[in-house]
């Protein structure tokens, strides 16, 4: 049984587009990345999955059950929203205890553990916390019941780099313990570092769903060359070359196709430098988004 199973999910907001025909599955123990620009439908998908909004058609299941008809499946789900707002006039510990009271577990030890890891003062009033500190409350709050599925919506916004690192370590260790992670983000570095598989969403549709290794390796090479004299533009005029940036002696481009072809072509020129790298996700991402996919 898949942990998350989304089938042909469509949500319309009146005339406005929500998401169209989204299908994806996340398996037990995976860290799944969900990437897309702002407004692509990431949050809509997550909110439907959690049962906060109702689908127009299709289905979204967690552990084989739908959150709206079987709210008890949320027992095993931890959710960190992109923006956190909590009740006025409560201390951090009050909120965490209230949160813990929804689960059939004693979470006291866990609260202290997590608070220590995230460097969170439990006695402070939530109203007085900064945005980043509220976010930490959100993280702890989402993890106190040791959920088997962790859903993160833009989790690192507002956290300083140190905390971001600790946070990802925390998530990684939860994952090692067996938790499945669904990470929605537009920060590709995060996704690249963490995820085994990714889905790319644009304008409400999934445009790519692939293993990270394939997506990254998938024939794409980032090639940078430096010529001894100004480079002849026509050498790059061949199938498989994209994103060409050519300025005098240097050129940089993405290449997809038989590597021998480009090497033979490059060998015809006098080069002073050459580098061939795995492209980072950002470049692939831009590749998918800037063109029509």
């Amino acid at each position, binding site marked *: 049984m898949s942990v998350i199973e989304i089938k042909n999910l469509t949500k319309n907001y009146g005339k406005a587009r929500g998401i169209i025909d989204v299908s994806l599955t996340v398996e037990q123990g995976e860290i799944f990345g969900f990437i897309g620009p702002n407004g692509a439908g990431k*949050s*809509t998908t997550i*909110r439907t999955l*959690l*049962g*906060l*909004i*109702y689908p127009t058609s299709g289905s979204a299941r967690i552990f084989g059950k739908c959150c709206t008809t079987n*709210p*008890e*499946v*949320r*027992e095993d*789900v931890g*959710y960190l*929203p992109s*923006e*956190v*707002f*909590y*009740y*006025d*006039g409560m201390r951090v510990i009050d909120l965490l205890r*209230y*949160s813990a*009271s*929804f*689960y059939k577990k004693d979470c006291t030890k866990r609260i202290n553990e997590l608070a220590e890891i995230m460097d969170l003062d439990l006695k402070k009033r939530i109203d007085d916390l900064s945005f980043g500190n509220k976010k930490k409350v959100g993280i702890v*709050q989402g993890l106190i019941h040791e959920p088997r599925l962790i859903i993160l919506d833009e989790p690192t916004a507002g956290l300083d780099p140190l905390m971001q690192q600790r946070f990802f370590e925390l998530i990684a260790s939860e994952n090692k313990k067996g938790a499945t992670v669904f990470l929605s983000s537009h920060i590709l570095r995060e996704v690249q570092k963490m995820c085994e598989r990714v889905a790319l969403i644009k304008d409400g549709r999934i445009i790519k769903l692939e293993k990270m290794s394939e997506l990254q390796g998938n024939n794409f090479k980032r090639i940078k060359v430096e010529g001894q004299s100004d480079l002849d533009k026509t050498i790059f005029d061949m199938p498989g070359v994209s994103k060409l940036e050519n300025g005098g002696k240097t050129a940089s481009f993405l290449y997809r196709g038989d590597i021998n072809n480009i090497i033979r072509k490059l060998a015809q020129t006098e080069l002073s430098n050459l580098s061939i790298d795995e492209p980072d996700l950002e470049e692939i991402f831009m590749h998918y988004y800037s063109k029509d996919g």
Partner: protein
Amino acid sequence: MNMYLHELKSMRKSTIMWTCSMIAIALVYLSLYPAIFSDGAHFKDMLAGYPASIRAVLGVTLDSVTTLLGFYSMIIAFVVLCGGIQAMNLGMSMLSKETRERTADFLLVKPVSRAAVVTAKILAGLTVFLITDVVYYAGASVIASIVKQSSYSGGLFFMINLTLFFVQLIFFAIGAVVSVFFDRLRSVLPVSLGTVFGCYIIGALVAAGKDDWARFISPFRYFDYSYIIQNSRYETPYLATGAVIVIVSVVTCYFVYARKDIHAVS
């Protein structure tokens, strides 16, 4: 249970405030009772000359106006107005505050059904104004026993006070059902004040005299105190209307809230 307690806790301060204001109203007015009682005889003679429509508008019952119960049934109108505002506020803010204060993303991803959320909130609201009413009733009883000039029926006194609870129940249910139809209710007070006050003014100005149909418009007029004092019971049609309003509202509330999309923070 945890949600219920959480709700109760968050309403503690306002409950104390409402209860105190309501007792204060009773205290101020009831303390005038001895003076009014001394004017009793004249007062009674004079009122006999009033036309019926005026008597109805003033809520004065001719026969019993100088008794404690008669006097009390005039002043409880203010208390009921106060309680009505409290109840409507409660009903409206209860469910809408999760979206207004943007805590819905916290509460509604917990392993509880929407129905359980509604139940916890409704029970907490009920408890709040039940506490208010019990404390108020205790306070009013003490004050009444101090200012009384002759003995009065405790049963009728209770029945008069019970109308406070009924009216609150109606406004609470109306408030709850109104709130689920708004996607984002920015502020509760204008709507609840408007509704409750509208009903109060309609009750005071329109629903006077014998035009019984008009009494159905304003819950404040569902309970005619002179009728209660004379017959020791409530008027069934109005009681039934109140019950229907409450049941329909609550059921609608469950139904709509369970199917409602909770949108992301804008």
